[in-house]
């Protein structure tokens, strides 16, 4: 589904990704872990098409298409979804209107007719249940004045509405209490199936108790320096990152 080969990116003069290689197949969950500043969020942003980052080398193939030349909206329409670490507050734009626009843009891209008001509301009600989000929240301006947990639930709600093929969750767990974490994870798990995939970018192993990964990768200084199964996350939780850093230093 997603093949990343030797991906390099920088912001300004600063090299952040120095040759990432990653293969994600349908149905898989990949966790990307690593110490602060290792490039985890940069990888998520580059995949979603954030313009501040300049890709200086490598390839990203998504379902047979080179996405690096695509606009963020086209990547989204091809099926990539980024759940933001810090979802943006947009005053004056209600979540409902925003979602209606987004859903219909996606449908238009796939050659489907726009949803009428009744069908849209039906779809929304169904997806709201998944993340236990209240309609009153969705009537409000997008993320404006939302708590941290509400913002993250809204991200997963949007993911449910847009049904991406590849969801990238950028530190969706950070700042969440355990109840909110369970709700968010539960939502993600319900959305998983054989034909979609999830990349979970996280700092903490705790999330991976709820969203169980097939593979765990450690990103350090812009490279994936270690890959393993979910046991690797437990080891990182127990031992920290120093042993990884030592391994890299001696390699």
């Amino acid at each position, binding site marked *: 589904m997603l093949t990343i080969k030797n991906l390099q990116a920088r912001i300004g003069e600063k090299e952040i990704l120095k040759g990432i290689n990653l293969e994600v197949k349908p149905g898989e969950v990949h966790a990307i872990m690593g110490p602060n500043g290792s490039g985890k969020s940069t990888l998520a942003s580059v995949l979603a098409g*954030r313009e501040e980052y300049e890709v200086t080398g490598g390839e990203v193939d998504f379902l047979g298409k080179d996405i690096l030349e695509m*606009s*963020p*909206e086209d990547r989204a329409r091809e099926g990539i979804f*980024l759940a*933001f670490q810090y979802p943006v507050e*947009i005053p*004056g734009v209600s979540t409902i209107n*925003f979602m209606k626009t987004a859903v219909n*843009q996606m449908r238009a891209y796939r050659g489907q007719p726009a949803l009428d008001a009744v069908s849209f509301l039906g779809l929304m009600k169904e997806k709201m249940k998944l993340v236990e989000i209240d309609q009153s929240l969705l009537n409000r301006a997008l993320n404006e004045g939302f708590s941290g947990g509400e913002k993250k639930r809204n991200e997963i709600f949007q993911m449910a509405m847009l049904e991406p093929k590849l969801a990238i969750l950028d530190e969706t767990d950070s700042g969440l209490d355990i109840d909110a974490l369970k709700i968010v994870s539960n939502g993600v798990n319900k959305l998983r199936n054989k034909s979609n995939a999830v990349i979970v970018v996280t700092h903490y192993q705790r999330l991976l108790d709820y969203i169980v990964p097939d593979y765990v990768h450690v990103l350090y200084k812009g490279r994936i320096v270690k890959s393993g199964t979910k046991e690797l996350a437990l080891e990182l939780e127990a031992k920290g990152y120093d042993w990884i850093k030592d391994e890299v230093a001696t390699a």
Partner: protein
Amino acid sequence: MSTTATDKTITTDIALRVENELPNLPQAAAIRKQALEALRTLGLPASKNEEYRYTPITRVLERNFNFTTPATPGTADATAFAIPGLEANVLVFVNGVYSAEQSRIVSPESELAIMPLAEAFTRKSAIVTEHFAKHVDYNTDAFAAWNTAAWKDGVFIEVPANKVVELPVVIYHIHDTQTAQAVSTNRNLFVVGRSGAVTVIEKLDTAGTGNGFSNHVTEAVVAENASLNLYMIQDDHGNRYHAGNTHIYQSNSSRVNTYTYTLEGKFVRNNLHLSLDGEGIESHMYGLYLLQNDTLADNHTVADHRKPNSFSNEIYKGVLDGKAKGVFNGKIYVRPQAQKTNAFQANRNILLTDNATINTKPQLEIWADDVKCSHGCTTGQLDEEALFYLQTRGIPKDTARAMMLYAFAGELLDAVKHPVIREFLDGRVSDRLHKNF
């Protein structure tokens, strides 16, 4: 308000033209004479004049108008500029001249007395004498002086006590510039009696691509417990140059909402002055300017709190594209006896290009010590992070941009309570912001 005069000939030209064309209205002759003197003394504002610092109106008028020639009458049809579906009393002025055949008064006389201002000097002499030229100060503002000396036509409205005028009054000020420049000097006086209510919409439009300059003055008096909604919709597709002075005088428990929406035009100066001379008053000043190309819009507002326990709130927002220039100056005066005043002001701007500019200046002068006053100005670009966020949901950048601009302006559309006017403004704002979602 000190005025630094120009010694340019433009003032001489204008004063001479005014003098040669003084309308024959004995009741107004003395004031006209004084105002003409004031115009000659003040002169049109020079570039150093603080009140016109960012708005070189005199230079612009010199370059684009010839005030030595008589004004040309126009023949434009107001239909093209009508607010669709608005049931209203309609008054049409073409190049400043009342067009009876395009106008219609539908409200009953028991609700509303409405007539040309010149006629009101005879038919309503007591009330006109009491209020005419008592609020807009022609001794300090050259444009007010010019208008007071030169006005030929305008609207007098009187709402009797306890009467709520059901249908709004719409005044279409059309410049017909198809064959020659247009110059208009309209003068209005609105008096809303005790517990009365009325909505008045002034709309500026231009037929033709030539230049037009309007120097308009509106005085409004809102008696105790009365209310006035006053709209100024500036939607000229042509080259409208405008200097407007609107002064609203409010008594106890009166309510005033003003909506000053500049959607297009060339060079627009709006002076809006609210005198809150009573207790329990509530005033809202709403402003929106969507500017493109090399348009300039300058809003100078005053909320003058003269008595205790009143409330004023002002929100002006602007979106500036191209090389557009915006100017905002908001004065709040709280006089010593005006304790327990609540006065708020906000001016927010989005600049879409590096060449667009805004000069914004809050000016609070507070002499009372037990008041709540605040002001805030923000100027920025569209939030790139928010645009990216919308894009990652599959929304194209242009649409995302339009959504955000529309949301920015939305507060000022929500403030419009009249459904038909709201729908009209919504449509115009959407068109201007290229909303296509």
